[in-house]
């Protein structure tokens, strides 16, 4: 299982090695351009950043922001930790993983949550019609990600021993083909790959009934140095995201259009998944609980090096910018 986490760990190490060298460069770049760059995972959960960027909310709030798309939160947060970008979007899992390696970064805001971003899509032809049918099946997922974590929870919740399921680690872009080709029986993957898988499977595909046992958070993380040096810009960034959040709530059709363009998906995808996401700025206690739960899961499942300890995740949360921008959004006791 540890191998599933290797890419992430390697990335973390590279980030640690390059940290010193890149810190100066990124700091110089940040300072020179006075621009915040955000590595944005291409996901429906990133919609607030898409909206703020599209509607120039960043500029309106007085902060220059440039986004850089990346595939998956692990990659995004790696760019942030490597100093390539100022901030990164990711679910809480990459944060938890990297927290075991370094402590020079922190989550500054949760700007979206979802209980249904990760779905279990199965092939009917593989004899899967209910969660209990997964036992003995091959289930593809991105190892060490929130999708993997969800898969474990899903199996346990439904009384299926995870060890009875053959987890096939695949990259997100490989999953759809694998499911379609029948190399795996099912997959636990997040959007938009779940949707694509279902499209690919057509009548053969089934989304197993989801247990709302996991709330995925989508967060914006930054290095401590940047948080300390650019707190004012981060506050403006928070305000721009809060505006975007209100825009999404108040103008869902326009927000959907923005999302459709950025995701390069059709309206079918939007319609199928729109209700699965909750775009709300927050920093709350469940984030810590989820991080801790994932850490315990990773330790228990052996995804982390032996001897690792669950860190104090409060140290990986920097609530000041959000508190200054949206005081009510911060309910975390810190």
């Amino acid at each position, binding site marked *: 299982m540890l191998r599933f986490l290797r890419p992430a760990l390697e990335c973390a190490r590279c980030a640690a090695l390059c940290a010193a060298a890149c810190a100066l460069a990124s700091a110089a770049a940040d300072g020179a351009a006075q621009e915040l760059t955000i590595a944005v995972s291409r996901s429906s959960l990133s919609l607030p950043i898409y909206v703020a960027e599209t509607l120039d909310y960043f500029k309106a709030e007085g902060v220059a922001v440039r986004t850089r798309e990346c595939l998956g939160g692990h990659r995004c947060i790696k760019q942030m930790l490597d100093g390539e970008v100022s901030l990164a979007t990711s679910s809480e899992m990459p944060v938890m993983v990297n927290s075991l390696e370094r402590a020079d970064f922190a989550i500054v805001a949760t700007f979206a949550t979802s209980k249904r971003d990760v779905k279990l899509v199965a092939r009917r032809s593989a004899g899967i019609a209910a969660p209990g049918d997964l036992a003995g099946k091959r289930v593809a997922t991105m190892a060490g990600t929130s999708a993997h974590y969800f898969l474990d929870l899903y199996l*346990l919740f439904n009384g299926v021993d995870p060890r009875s399921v053959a987890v096939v680690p695949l990259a997100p872009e490989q999953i759809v083909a694998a499911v379609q080709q029948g190399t795996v029986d099912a997959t636990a993957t997040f959007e938009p790959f779940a949707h694509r898988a279902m499209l690919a499977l057509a009548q053969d595909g089934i989304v197993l009934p989801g247990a*709302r*046992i996991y709330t995925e958070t989508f967060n914006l993380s930054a290095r401590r140095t940047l948080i300390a040096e650019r707190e004012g810009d981060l506050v403006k960034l928070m305000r721009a995201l809060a505006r975007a959040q209100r825009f999404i709530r108040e103008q869902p059709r326009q927000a959907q259009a923005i999302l459709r363009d950025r995701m390069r998906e059709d309206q079918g995808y939007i319609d199928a998944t729109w209700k699965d996401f909750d775009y709300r700025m927050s920093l709350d206690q*469940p984030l810590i609980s989820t991080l801790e*739960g994932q850490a315990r899961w990773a330790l228990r499942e052996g995804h982390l090096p032996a001897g690792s300890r669950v860190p104090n995740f409060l140290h990986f949360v920097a609530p000041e910018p959000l508190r200054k921008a949206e005081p*009510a959004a911060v*309910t975390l006791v810190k």
Partner: protein
Amino acid sequence: MRIRTQLLLATATAVGVALIVLGSVLYVTQRSAANLRAEGDSQEIARTVANLLTLTQEYTLYRGERAAEQWRARYAQLKQTVEQALARESPPHPALTEMQQRVVDLLPLYDRLEEAHRDGASSLAQRRRELMVERLVSETQELVDARHRWATAIMDRQSREQFVANVIVFVAAAVLLTLIVGLALLIRRRGLAPLERLQAAAAAIQRGDLAVRCETGTQDELGDTGRAVNAMAESLLAANAALRESQERYRLAVDGSNQGLWDWDIARGTMYLSPRAQLLLGLAPGTPTRPRREWNAIQTCHPDDRALVRDAISAYLRGATEHLEIEYRIRHASGQWHWYRCRGVAVRDERGRPYRMAGSMEDISARKDAEAERNRLERQLRQAQKLEAIGTLAGGIAHDFNNILAAILGYGEMVQNEAGEGTRIRRHIDAAMSAALRAKSLVERILAFSRAGTGERVTVPVRAVMEEVLDGIGGALPAGVRLQRDLAGVADDAGVLGDATQIHQVVLNLCANATHAMRSDGVLAVSLDTVTLDDDLVVATSTLAPGRYVRLRVADTGSGIEPHVLERIFDPFFTTKEVGVGTGLGLSLVHGIVRDLGGGIAVESQVGRGTTFTVYMPWVRCEDRLPTVDGPIERGGGETVMIVDDEESLVRLGEEMLAELGYEPVGFVSAVQALAAFRAEPDRFDAVLTDEAMPEMSGSEFTIEALRLQPTLPVVLMTGFVNAAVTARAQESGVAEVLVKPLVSRDIARSLAAVLGRGSAGKVARAEREP
């Protein structure tokens, strides 16, 4: 826009705002209640969730059925509370929706936890329990977080709604304030300000400034009122002009009538006296309206008139008389009593009771004085007419009687001449002649009273005549009567144009009456002086014109004259003396003479203390002495004298007298025959004696015809009644002299000697007569 419309709009706006405010208040109240309920639900959820957490931990630790039972009970309560809150919220807050979902999510987790417990102690079961507990805690925390967000949302909503409520209240207050201010400004600008201007205009009109005009620019009620006020001002202006014109006419009429006005407010007891009325009373015009008592104290009514005034006013106010018009006396401010005529009318109430009385007053003193003067003059005129009538009657009788007496005296004189001295016939004829002479004297006195003028007047030195008369009567006074004379008051040249004999008669008669009044004891004071009158002087017999007068005063200390007698003392034949003592012609004669002289007589008498007669005679300067009237009878030299008289006896008597005097008389009883004889022989006659009063031709007419034939012919006219007309007619006709009958030889001798140019005597106006 009409004020009514404006008010309706303002009222509608106010009602609208009030409804909005009311609706807002109701809405806010409703929302507050909803928020309170939501807040209660939120708190209930918080308590329930906390209980669920506790019970989850209890169950995890002890796995007791009680904890599970309570968990489920609390869960059911939580679900119900959330659903109830959801039902109340429309639209539901996302956090509440999320809570609902999370509540739903809790139960499967708990079911799985119980299931895991039941699975025993396998590692899978253990992992499942741990996972379920972890998820339950996490989900519960998320539920808590959602509840917190909902609670925050409720608070935010409350804040917003409170803010909205505040805004509504503020806006409503602002709107109301704006409305009130706007309405106040509108009322001020469109209502009060025009109303104040209207009021100011009305006040100005009330003060009499009718030139002021109101604004009429608006088409509302105030504009209508302004136009109405302007129209009223125009009407008042026209009415005032008419009133002023009327008042001017009235004032001119009142001023022209010289009348003052009074207005008595009976109810208030005040009296208005116009300035003119005050001036009429001699007062300086002051406060016109005062208590009536003050005016009554100022204008004192004559004591003799008070009852008249009181009775007249009382009778009028009672309605007994139709008009009030009184003439009475009020003491003028100068202290004199003035006559006023007061007219008035009363204003009565519906029961006929007078409550106001007004009228005019006029100073009629001049009229009253004029009336008194007119009455006096009327009395004087009646007296003069009476005296004239009596004089005419007496003169006529005396004239005829004089002719008879002339014959008696003529023939008696002849008998005397023929009768021897001491004979019986001579004694008889002497007695008859004496009686005839008394009769002649009486006739002369009657004629002197009755004639209104004499022929020719001369200047009489009045002081010399007075001395002569007083010398004559001094010795004839009774023993107890003392004569006190004072003639030093006149100069020697003081004279009267008249006849010395007349002066004699005046003094003699006045002294005789005075002596008679004093009987046998007293003082007879006679004084003479001159006086100059600057104004008319009213005396008993006439009104004397201004000028210089010789004033003769004859005063006695006798019994005085009773007032009722004073009015008649100048009447002929009126006497208070015993029968046979007085003829009643003395004062009549005096009056006739003095009137003939152009003077007058004043009488002052006090019964028991005496009487003073003051005779005023026009003063003239006198230088001549009285002519000597007595002397020897001048006889004729055989001249032929024609004598003409319609009385044959007088013709015969005349012929005999002329013959006795040495003339050749030719008598005619007809003037026509005489004129024919004269025409036949104009040069035959040296002189003519002719009567004036003849039936065929008067003496004057005869004289004219005769002088036409013989211009140098001397003509002497004889008449028993001489007045100014006769004298003038005689002079115009060329008569040389007028003789008054009855004639005696001396008169004829003197006159003929004078006209024939042979005697020493000049023309004498009339013959001398015995007094």
